[in-house]
């Protein structure tokens, strides 16, 4: 009986501990490549927008010839995502169309393959996409 209780306590502790480990690991490669996504609209609304992506190496040089696929999805599960591919516009600069299908909050995922074959994954949150353009 005592052993069983101990086993439950150990299992619970491991679960909590491992949960913490996972969150730590996610930060490991953050510093090596600088990815700066910026949405063209200050107040995004339903429809097509443009995402500008700046890629820089650890010491600041622009990273060219990367392949960037962009997934735009609502932060609610079960909604229609949209996919696009970014095209290079200047050294280390890329642009991709993003589609907001309805009002709400979005997550944009960037799947980046650098020219040297390394891959990166970044996400950025877009809050408060409106149903209609903001009236000026």
């Amino acid at each position, binding site marked *: 009986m005592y052993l069983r209780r101990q086993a439950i306590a150990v299992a619970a502790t491991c679960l909590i501990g491992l*949960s913490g480990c996972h969150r730590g690991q996610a930060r490991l490669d953050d510093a090596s490549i600088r990815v700066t996504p910026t949405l063209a609209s200050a107040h995004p609304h339903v429809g097509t927008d443009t995402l500008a992506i700046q890629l820089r190496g650890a010491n600041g040089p622009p990273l060219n010839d990367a392949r960037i696929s962009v997934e735009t999805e609502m932060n609610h599960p079960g909604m229609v995502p949209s996919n696009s591919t970014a095209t290079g516009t200047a050294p280390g600069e890329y642009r991709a169309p993003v589609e907001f299908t309805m009002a709400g909050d979005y997550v944009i995922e960037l799947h980046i393959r650098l020219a040297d074959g390394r891959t990166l994954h970044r996400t950025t949150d877009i809050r408060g996409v409106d149903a209609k353009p903001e009236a000026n």
Partner: protein
Amino acid sequence: MALSQHIPDVQERRFDLLRVPMLGRFLKQKHARTLLQIPVFIVAVVMVLHGIFGPQISPKNLSTVLTWVHFRGVLILVLLVAGNFFCMACPFMLVRNAGRRLFKPRWNWPRALRNKWGGILLFAGVLFAYENFSLWSRPLWTAWLTAGYFGIALLVDGLFEHATFCKYLCPIGQFNFIASTVSPLEVAVRDHGVCDRCQTKDCIRGRRAAGPGAEKFVILQRGCETALFQPRKEGNVDCTFCLDCVHACPHDNVGILSREPVAELSSNALRSGIGRFSRRVDLAALAVFFVFSALMNALGMVAPVYSMEKWLGSVLRTEWQPLLLGLVFVAVIVLLPAVLLLPAAAVSSRVSARNWREMLLRYSYSLVPVGFGMWLSHYSFHFLTGLLTVIPVTQSALNDIGIYAFGDPMWTLMGLPLRWVQPLQMGALVMGFAGSLIVSWRLAEEDAEDRVAAIFAPWAAVDVVLLVIAVWLMLQPMDMRATLMAG
């Protein structure tokens, strides 16, 4: 034309799920429930693990996808076409039962708490947390909510005897108890004559034997843990479909029988374990909460609520979301019912010359079908439009742990197109509305045969208002924000 209700006499020939070949035989096995619980438990464990260790992107995590899209959708659809089968396959009770092998509960749940107020509070708490913390967008939090649910069920039922957690506290259970009043199946006695001759009453008492050593007895077969004595049980309220009564009955006299959906809502008969509907303020409050929380839950997904919160924020000069959201909750779940139901009770009381409080309590149950329609419309929307999203998320989760046998995630898999789902949503609302009208009419028939329409009218008006609000909500463009004050 009289629409007076007839809960079918048990002697009438009714469909009995337990008489269906193979399925019935399976369900009557002593460990059938456990066999149903194990896969659901495994799915729950996978959800928790993926929520903790998987990608923290809601549409790509099994914790959020299964909880907020599939579980809720399947739950409401099964309630519509069958009955409270989620409680039957409840994974929390699997863990609870395992826990009770280690910890024997010693206490009875305090008498003062043997009502639905605690369940309503927890139900409200979960809904508030869902909106306030945007749980749909947080896999980790959703995972801990699920894990916490296991923990609380284990703790409560580890300390208190019988099915305390299910009957008095479990928010999903309370939802199911009320929602299953519209279900077409119920656990019921096949032949009351057999019960009249029964000497042992095992369906409520269970079967015990003298225990070894210090233990006074061992339970060979549990009786009903929610205190529903089969011969006097009516309807689905508080029934978890655990089938303990089926297994306990020595005469094989309990089945899962067909019945007329919603009929129990217009019955004020004395029910075992419940009493009369008209005397249960807490149960009527749960029914009202069930209805108006459906509105609140849907309201949280459309743009006007954000405008309302912004306006409230500007009036109160605050952006503190819990306060603003709390005020919206109070407006929708407390004030709106008061504004609609109190006048209806007053008018129908005056016409029928009956006590207004009794009218309020009895007719509150008539709103359950329209509330069910709202839940069905909302949850089936997410479920049907996101039906297949579980496939790529599962593929992705398998890939993450090195299993590639099921291929790369097919992220383009979605579900039914919106143009197919919207008519179904509308159908759900209209069906619920019709159910509420039928229940109100039957209640009015009981109250005064010569003034049925006059008593019915104010409650029908409440149903119409709820339907109009629900349709308006459905036609609003969706707006799903994690932060109410954003944008």
